[in-house]
């Protein structure tokens, strides 16, 4: 194995000459390529969930959070072309556009549970736990690993809407986000 790179180049150049010396010769040319591992999420439908009025307008719970039905968002045709993928959900509580600290007895945050299903066994869920002043609004959840390449419609459900301490909600426009991430179960260290 006292091999040197210069020797290999000489050997390759010598092959055509050897072929001409025989009647039949079979050569092999390797054809190679790669398929890049990729995960694609379908565009959320709907991309914006409008819950309408969050507070009850009459009755004993007037001013406090109303019963908000479960909301469903579909991410159609989502796929990963490799084994070992997971869905992660990052949910941010709804908070009022009035960022001032609320008076005692009031909340400017609405918490909820975001759950992404139909990818692996179980679901990827995150339940926000913002405080009444809107602080600490974000929660994460990662589901089980999908052991095979898969294409599916991922269903995102938003449910269990609550206000911290069931306090009265401050008037205003509220907004939050859910980020759904589809990717490898464990990201190896980069080896470039």
């Amino acid at each position, binding site marked *: 194995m006292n091999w040197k790179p210069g020797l290999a180049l000489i050997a390759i150049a*010598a092959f055509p000459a050897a072929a001409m010396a025989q009647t039949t010769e079979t050569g092999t040319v390797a054809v190679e390529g790669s398929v890049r*591992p990729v995960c694609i*999420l379908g565009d959320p439908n709907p991309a914006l*969930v409008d819950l309408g009025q969050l507070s009850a307008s009459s009755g004993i719970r007037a001013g406090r959070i109303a019963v908000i039905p479960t909301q469903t968002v579909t991410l159609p045709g989502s796929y990963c072309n*490799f084994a070992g993928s997971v869905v992660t959900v990052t949910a941010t509580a709804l908070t009022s556009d009035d960022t001032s600290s609320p008076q005692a007895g009031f909340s400017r945050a609405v918490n909820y549970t975001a759950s992404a299903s139909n990818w692996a066994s179980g679901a990827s869920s995150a339940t926000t736990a913002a405080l009444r002043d809107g602080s600490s609004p974000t929660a994460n959840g990662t589901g089980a690993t999908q052991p095979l390449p898969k294409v599916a419609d991922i269903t995102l459900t938003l449910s269990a809407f609550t206000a911290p301490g069931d306090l009265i909600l401050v008037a205003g426009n509220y*907004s939050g986000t859910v980020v*759904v991430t589809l990717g490898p179960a464990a990201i*190896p260290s980069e080896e470039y």
Partner: protein
Amino acid sequence: MRRNAAFLTAALALALPSLAQAQTVAGDTDSKTVGIVGTVPAMCFGGTLSGDGTFDLGVLVDLTTGQLRTDLAAPDKVLLGSYCTSRSSITVSATPLEAQNYVSTPPSGFSRTVHYLATASGWTTTPASYDTGAATNNAATQTRNTAFTGDITVAISNFSTSGGSTLRLVGDDAYRGVVTVTLAAVN
């Protein structure tokens, strides 16, 4: 030479999986964001009135003079658990105590009306107040700049006979007035 060429080929083949693994890190994750919105309208709740909702002053006059008692008083009323979810105003208005049966103009020396001051405190720094005998009541409406929940105390005081303290009140078993407290959301 053939052995050397085969070694080179094997070396290249081994290198390819390593390249693919590096790409896994680079671009195999996708994220999508879903927005959530909702609204909470401005609303106010006047609270639950303590007691039976009536200021019972009893007999209004000093039985020896026939004039308005100077020690008239009644326990405060409380609006429990009042709230507004936004900036708000509180307004108090009142009607004087008037004889309900003796409705004609009383004769000289008599009156059928008692004025008083109604206040609503606990909501704003300066209580809202309304004097039934005053021509104007600039303090009747007070504004609070933040959402608030709490109890509102409603009181009546400063009783006076309409027309002057020397007048006597006409006999009637029902003198009545009304105090109204209004909470309103303000944009």
